């Protein structure tokens, strides 16, 4: 039952790390050289915005899957994050396209630090849940 979610998790984790890298690069590594490589912060932000929505959608999709599979514990674990995602997207800055990050304020040290922290926390959460799903899958396979 859990095999499909796991495949997705792997993809998602990759996605997650992809998502993590730019921020990491942008902040902790040399920001300037990164900017030079990417020619402009603006394009970077734009690319980056496209990843936010898929992430949220995939996570929501997982939650639906867990709901269908009646995995109540797993669903319960994921609900806070889902709620956070919804809140986060509701309170995003005014913008016409999809996206979360405003290029004009992202360089504010507070916002940047917040985004980075958020990224790390989510990465940790996804990793832990990935292993938890893996464990669940093996457990199901072994017991069946």
């Amino acid at each position, binding site marked *: 039952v859990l095999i499909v979610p796991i495949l997705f998790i792997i993809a998602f984790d990759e996605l997650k790390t992809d998502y993590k890298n730019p921020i990491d690069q942008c902040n902790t590594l*040399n920001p*300037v050289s990164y900017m030079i490589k990417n020619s402009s912060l603006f394009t970077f932000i734009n690319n980056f915005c496209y990843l936010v929505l898929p992430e949220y959608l995939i996570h929501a999709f997982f939650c639906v899957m867990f709901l269908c599979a009646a995995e109540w514990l797993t669903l319960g674990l994921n609900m806070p994050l889902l709620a956070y995602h919804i809140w986060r997207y509701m309170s995003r800055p005014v*913008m016409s396209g999809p996206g979360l990050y405003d290029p*004009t304020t992202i360089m504010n040290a507070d916002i940047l630090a917040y985004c980075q922290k958020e990224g790390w926390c989510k990465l940790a959460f996804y990793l832990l849940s990935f292993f938890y799903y893996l464990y669940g899958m093996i457990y199901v396979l072994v017991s069946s």
Partner: protein
Amino acid sequence: MSAPAGIPPRPAAAPGGARAPAARPRAPPCRNGPVQSQVHFPSGYSLNPENYSAPSTHYPQVPHEAIPSQLDNQYIADYHSACYSVPAQSVMTHSIGPGMLNTQQLYGGAPHPVESSGGLLQEAVSSASHLHTSVPQSYSAMSSHYISSTSSSVASQGFPLSSGHYAMPSVSSAVYPHLSYPAMSIGSPYRQVLTSQSLPAVGQFKETNAFPGQSTIVPRTLQQQVTLGYNSTSWSTSDFQSAQENLSRNHTGSVAKASNQINTVGIVDSSHPVNQNVQFTKPGVETSVSSVVTSSVRTPAADHLIEPASVPSSTQPPESLLQEAIDSSSTTSSASPVTNNYDALEGGGYPDSATSSPAPPPQISRNTKPFGYGYPTLQPGYQNATLPTSAMQPSNPGHQSGFQQYPQQYPGVNQLSSSLGGLSLQHSQQPESLRPVNLIQERNILPVSPVLAPVPNLNSDLRKLNCNPDSFRCTLTNIPQTQALLNKAKLPLGLLLHPFRDLTQLPVITSSTIVRCRSCRTYINPFVSFIDQRRWKCNLCYRVNDVPEEFMYNPLTRSYGEPHKRPEVQNSTVEFIASSDYMLRPPQPAVYLFVLDVSHNAVEAGYLTIVCQSLLENLDKLPGDSRTRIGFVTFDSTVQFYNLQEGLSQPQMLIVSDIDDIFLPTPDSLLVNLHESKELIKDLLNALPNMFTNTRETHSALGPALQAAFKLMSPTGGRISVFQSQLPSLGAGLLHSREDPNQRSSTKVVQHLGPATDFYKKLALDCSGQQTAVDLFLLSSQYSDLASLACMSKYSAGCIYYYPSFHHSHNPTQAEKLQKDLKRYFTRKIGFEAVMRIRCTKGLSIHTFHGNFFVRSTDLLSLANVNPDAGFAVQMSIEESLTDTSLVCFQTALLYTSSKGERRIRVHTLCLPVVTSLADVYAGADVQAAVCLLANMAVDRSVSSSLSDARDALVNAVVDSLSAYISSASNLQQSTLIAPNSLKLFPLYVLALLKQKAFRTGTSTRLDDRVYAMCQIKSQPLGHLMKMIHPNLYRIDRLTDEGAIHVNDRVVPQPPLQKLSAEKLTREGAFLMDCGSIFYIWIGKNCDNSFIKDVLGYPNYASVPQKLTQLPELDTLSSERARSFISWLRDSRPLSPVLQVIKDESPAKTDFFHHLIEDRTEAAFSYYEFLVHIQQQICK
């Protein structure tokens, strides 16, 4: 004050001298060290008396070639004064110019620019700067002698000197200029006498003559010295003890303290002249003191007479420099690689070796010693960051050149700062800025004269070199060492910049290589240290760099081998003409596009006539060269373009009505060369106001018009000026009214401070990417959602002007304001395709920027256009503690293309000391800068969170900082509201902020007005912003010449500032309120008829009209005084403010009374209530 008595001399010296390092054997003094060479070196070698009498000159060490060196000195001294007396008040500069020369001669050192701009204060202040000079010098002299005490004759000579300066430490750390001044006069002349006695050097007796009394005593003092030299320990102990006693006896009067100390010293020294000098310590006798100094400098003063001849007039330096530089430019091309990005152009980051290379090994110093005299000219100015070891070298002091001090280990600074760490100001006298002020009891908190920026507590060499506070200011002039200390102080740390300010004097440097640090790309500046002739150490990242060959030649003096005399090392504000390495593309021409609203609303308001007329008048004054291009776009529900191609008989209008998919009707000839098509442009401008008179079109398609403008501009970049008169209602970017008029005076939530759509922001970012700035002129009578519209200027580095309820005839004040603003707008300088980078000493980092720009990376702002009226603010944070440095520097580099198509870099460098104690942090607080920074932060907060949050944050800023201060100063009563003198205006200014349009609640404020005030806070430079927040109020019906200053042969009266309270207004008086962009003259009901007659030109109060906007030119004394005062106020700022005469019963008086911020209103505290509120918060 509380230093334990009987400490051995060396530590004892420490508590006294906040600036002077303790002379511990292992921690040699640093900054002051080089000065020591002034003491010794001249004794044997120098024939130039300037070295003595003018210890603060930049060239204490005279090169071998006597004559050229003199020329150098004079030249550069003058050059300095010329370049520095810059402030925007050109008028002042003129009048002060000659005065400055005088001062130089009198005091022997170029007075600090900032201080000189103080006008009348000039003399006093420059003497103050002097005193600081003398302090470290004498101190270092002393410390050096402690170390090499018994060794040589010269050392022993120095001894009485040093004892004489025992008085200094306390004085130096205190900011009592007048008190300590006499101490300096003790120092310098006396020193001369001594040295000249012991080492008979020709030429110095001349000066000695000026002090007959002293010279006779010299033998005596010499004897004394010998004994002193041997018993140094016991002697200074006793000395200090007695000083202590005196101190403890005089707790109240600081004046008494200082003089007492000097007395003590005099007694210990038991040398007559010193006692004599003590007399000078009485305040008010400065004239006699200065006369002493004068006489000592008279000889050099005579030499100065040739100055004017040898010095190019002040306006010339750019050209002459340029020429010479071209002559001299060797082919060494700069090593910077070809880059493909503006970021890279301006440079930045720490690409390689981010950690600075370690300080040079000690051998270097030994190696370089032999150069000693051959390379005598490295001067103390560079020494700031380095600690001269020479102070502890027992080598023959007579032969010390300045040189040995240069090869300093950086770690040495560690020792300095650790030794400084012990020097809490509380141990010495409390400086003026720390004097506790009981806010509740002190009724007249506002000073009589405008508040000046505090001067950083640096030694005088650095202080003179430091950046003008008008361009560059820091909220804390003493930088706390750690973030923890900063958090404890609860004060914001940040910079306020006005980088592109109009300067009357600016050294412009043309050189094929612009010398920059190889790792952090910092431009060479006055605060770097030269390790030897060939290498310099970056003061930001501490990397050691090579001095390029070309830099060795000084085009100013046409001499070789004096890199430290180059203008870029002598001026903290310089402009480089950049080579092609700094270009991504050929410099763009000046391109101006005007986007004009011609809908019914706009035509009815009648702004078109004013704009077209103003542009016609200033068409030739638009900054630009032969390539300048200009274009026009008008819009209502359609967008109209104008073909102005040369050769057409008349302008051709092209209408595009497809506003959903806007396109350019012709690819070219919409932007035309100004000079080739001038006639057509003039025709158009004449015709335009009448073309739309009968329009019925009420819609406004601003969005499509802007998209078209962007398409038009994107190939070149330039400036788009948008004139808009209503809410955009068609096409992309249309907006809806969001304001609920019933909520205008709500005390609760103020909504819609942020944009409604991101269309304008995106457009601005696109424009910014194409080097195009959008300036917005909003002239509307209704709500036009400025919060959304302003985005187009905010992120493209444009500027915003707002004229509420504009109408050409119904509202003449606004019409006049538009006229004046446009004149300035058309003719002011402009920089295209600019980037600005702010660098700071390692350990500090930039937290947030405020202003109109797009942030491209952590320290780089992209400014499509930069204008001279734009200010910026930067919040800083301390990432690593600054333990290994005693000075921090900030450098802004603004790279732009001038309107003449030159690529230029304007560099400002600011240097500030690092302190370790909380008291020092408070002592250095710059309350105006802090308030401006807080205002910027509060704007951000109210947009991102809510207005009430921002208001709370402002109040908390005061509460936190004052309670932190009260708890840090344990000797104060906890129950009273006490502030250090430096922060005494803090609550007042914050209250003013809370009552400012941007943040006030309860009073009816239109949303657009509020948003505009917020935009202004973000983008105005400090001086203007302060007047917006806290206007200046003067009483002008009784102007007298008392204290008046002379500007350009005019007498400008200086009435005292009044506090902003109705209690100061009397019905019998007339008052002028200076709000920055507007002057109000309020006339009381029973105002003196003679004032109304003589100044306003009306027979009595009743006949004065309601709308009077200028003062008539009457031939009476009081009219002349009033007019000269007002025009003097006007001249001090770039935007000429409008004048509005308000009668006591006119409806406009509410505007005036809103500015009386100390009074109570229905919705807000009075000043006293506010203080009580703060006190309650603190006690909680």
